[in-house]
């Protein structure tokens, strides 16, 4: 079955430390890939997306993600976390013929400590 998996439900990281959030997908073909961030009580903001081409994608707020076809992964990274990065992060995929229907992972809650 098609699925999106975020193995880490909750991650705690110190301010200034690096952050990596994992995302794996299970689809027959390479889908379009996205990372969204959601602050408490808010909607979703797109951090970055991968459609094709360079497998290292740069996004907003200093985030980047790397697509690895062999591992069916699209992990999100940030070299140095700020307190304002505390939020919930969702990986999402869309099939190329799905007209933008997104399937989301369960999310990873990021807590930033001083």
């Amino acid at each position: 079955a098609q699925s999106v998996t975020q193995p880490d439900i909750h991650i705690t990281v110190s301010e200034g430390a690096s952050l990596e959030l994992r995302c794996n997908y299970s689809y027959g073909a390479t889908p379009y890939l996205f990372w969204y961030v959601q602050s408490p009580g808010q909607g979703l903001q797109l951090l970055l997306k991968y459609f094709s081409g360079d497998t290292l994608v740069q996004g907003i707020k200093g985030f980047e993600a790397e697509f690895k076809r062999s591992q069916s992964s699209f992990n999100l990274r940030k070299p140095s976390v700020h307190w304002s990065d505390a939020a919930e992060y969702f990986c999402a995929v869309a099939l190329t013929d799905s007209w933008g229907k997104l399937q989301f992972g369960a999310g990873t809650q990021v807590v930033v400590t001083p």
Partner: protein
Amino acid sequence: DAGVTQSPTHLIKTRGQQVTLRCSPKSGHDTVSWYQQALGQGPQFIFQYYEEEERQRGNFPDRFSGHQFPNYSSELNVNALLLGDSALYLCASSLSRWGNTEAFFGQGTRLTVV
């Protein structure tokens, strides 16, 4: 540009009642999708509207219905509300074609069924 706007922001309904949620897409966008996000979970796709017709649908019962107006705004209707319908309902707008497009999300409507 006001982005995607949803109304109301919060709503409390009683089991068995009916509810209508509203969404105005981002300027220039012609496609509206609706998602349900239960507490602690990722958003789940309900359906998508384009050219005033439902283009695709997720695994939601017929109690969930929608409409798109000529100005591209949209409504989500839920009949015979159940306690399990309590969730954040997110509207996303996009362009009908892929490419370097993305889905923009509203802030959501928090529905509580008591």
